[in-house]
């Protein structure tokens, strides 16, 4: 799947100075806008009201275990790569009360379902990799067989306004996973920011009817062929900037061939089992359920909380955990993400956003670990191939 394909038919253009009017349209329609903003030296998705809160003139640099925001010489609003937070913070909150039970005076109790209606979100600035991640979480939480209402209530009302990638960071490898830098599907609107010495505007592609609705009253014009070409150049330029690669050929089989690899012990020497990679991963969905009581025992609550396969108690079954060693926990995470996820959900569990590489405190790089497994096979093949030849030609 080519992800730097042409801008779709009949796009619109909106001057950057009129972006607030799109925000106003969203607010008037009752959406709570979640958009990128600078917080604690990072670009994160937060509730915002004004375009003035966007990270205009700010960008980032990312390496393994390093993230730094930098000033830009221009006022571009969306020339940065994904930060530590993903949209799952809003669709699948880190802590969520599922229900509570209260004693009813007699010998029984009443269950009170969580009454709170979640906000109707408009996500502005969803990167193509994160659109792909949301589509993956949809498969996890909204399958016909097992539907998660807590996710569904948030997800189905949410409006997704994508902004195509113009500034991939050093850890981005969406070109390898086929999930970027140009959004192909899954958005209500997709914007491409164009900024040159003379003009600053957005080329807007329509994805859905709901997307078209929120443009009513916003001063958009049909985009000119020149504007479409300029947007096209932004996307092509972004695609060229992605240098990190992960070879996905035969990836599932590769991972399954290495369940007993000594390489996992090498990773375990570095891995902190701190769970940062799973928490920043936009597709990781594992959680635990905790029951709490008040001191008098009159109220009990059931909470859902993000959990991680790096925690020992995560694999606690029948009296003891099954993945105690650090190596087994890292192997579980990467093998699920890249291999068994495909068996389970029919897609790769990785969207190439690079968050796990940037936010690992010791910089463990998922692409490096895959490459290490491939190299180990190549060196083994080099050692064994003469023998195999002699077999074939006795």
């Amino acid at each position, binding site marked *: 799947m080519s992800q730097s394909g042409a801008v779709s038919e009949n796009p619109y253009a909106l001057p950057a100075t009129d972006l607030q009017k799109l925000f106003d349209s969203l607010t008037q329609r009752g959406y709570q806008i979640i958009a990128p903003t600078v*917080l*604690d*030296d*990072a670009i*994160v998705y937060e509730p915002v009201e004004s375009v003035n809160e966007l990270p205009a003139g700010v960008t980032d640099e990312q390496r393994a*275990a*390093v*993230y*730094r*925001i930098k000033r830009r010489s221009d006022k571009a609003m969306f020339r940065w790569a994904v*930060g*530590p*937070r993903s949209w799952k*913070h809003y669709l699948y909150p*880190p*802590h969520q009360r599922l229900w509570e039970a209260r004693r009813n005076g007699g010998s029984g109790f009443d269950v009170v379902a969580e009454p709170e209606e979640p906000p109707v979100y408009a996500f502005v600035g969803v990167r193509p990799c994160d659109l792909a991640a949301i589509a993956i979480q949809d498969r996890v939480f909204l399958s016909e067989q097992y539907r998660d209402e807590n996710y569904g209530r948030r997800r189905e009302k949410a409006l997704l306004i994508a902004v195509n990638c113009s500034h991939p960071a050093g850890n981005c490898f969406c070109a390898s996973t086929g999930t970027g830098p140009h959004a192909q599907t899954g958005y209500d609107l997709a914007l491409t920011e164009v900024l040159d010495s003379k003009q600053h505007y957005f080329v807007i592609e329509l994805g859905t009817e709901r997307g078209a609705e929120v443009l009513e009253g916003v001063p958009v014009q049909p985009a000119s062929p020149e504007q479409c070409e300029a947007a096209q150049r932004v996307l092509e330029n972004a695609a060229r900037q992605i240098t990190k690669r992960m070879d996905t050929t035969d990836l599932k089989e590769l991972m399954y061939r290495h369940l007993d690899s000594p390489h996992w012990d090498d990773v375990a*020497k*570095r*891995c*902190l*089992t*701190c*769970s*940062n990679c799973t*928490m*920043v991963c936009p597709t990781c969905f594992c959680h635990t359920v*905790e*029951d*709490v*009581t*008040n*001191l*008098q*025992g009159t109220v009990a609550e059931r909470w859902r*909380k*993000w959990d*991680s396969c790096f*925690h*020992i*108690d995560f694999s606690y079954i029948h009296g003891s955990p099954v993945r105690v060693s*650090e190596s087994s926990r890292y192997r579980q995470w990467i093998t699920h993400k890249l291999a068994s996820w495909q068996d389970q959900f029919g897609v790769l569990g990785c969207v190439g956003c690079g968050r796990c590489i*940037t*936010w690992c*405190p*010791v*910089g463990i790089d998922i692409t490096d670990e895959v490459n290490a497994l491939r190299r180990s096979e190549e060196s083994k093949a080099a050692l064994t191939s003469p023998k195999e030849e002699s077999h074939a030609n006795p």
Partner: protein
Amino acid sequence: MARTTKPKLAVWKFASCDGCQLSLLDCEEELLEVAGAVDIAYFPEATRAVVKGPYDISLVEGSITTPHDAERIHQVRRASRFLITIGACATAGGIQALRNFKDVREFVGAVYATPQYIQTLSKSTPIHDHVFVDYELRGCPINKYQLLEVLSAYLHGRRPNIVPHSVCSECKRRGVVCVMVAKGVPCLGPVTHAGCGAICPSYGRGCYGCFGPKETPNTASLSKRWRQLGVKEEDLVRAYRGFNAYSEAFRRESESHER
């Protein structure tokens, strides 16, 4: 469910600063609930009234640093059905365990005019080195909500929702941006037991390790990263020699940087 008698709670102090006991008094609005659920039978910090033992629950604060306390903890154990140690002193020896890395007689000689009056042990040790402990609550000081959770779990016969995961898991759930990755600030969070709610990182500071080592702490890998961030060997020793200096994982890591 009407209970005929409330469980009796005792709070004991050994070598410590009283901060963890104060966490119980700091419960404020929940304190009345606590008093409603348990009979506060022995708590000299709060009241001179003493109800005789035995006690259903004993909260033990502080470490063992004197021959007298090494005896007294056995009496406390005998008088207690369920013994919970609270705080870094009781669970790891506390900041006073810094003596364990030196010769305590030198300190006594330097500080006291008449050292022969001082009866002190050569090491400050956690309660679990002396008696069986039913539950350990970490922290310097402990988190009052965790204390309420342990009491609530005990009262209702369930497991407390207290996990030995990293402080990172708390940062990420709260949406606190990693200070080590985004600012280059050395942080003990990846090897430290959760429970504080990631207080220091939420103010832009690195974690000081107040809750001691998490499950399977990879201190060697974290130290390697700290050195890349420019931290010197002697400062690595100091970082691990905080309130939980004598916990196994932190002790070994600090010693490895002294060689």
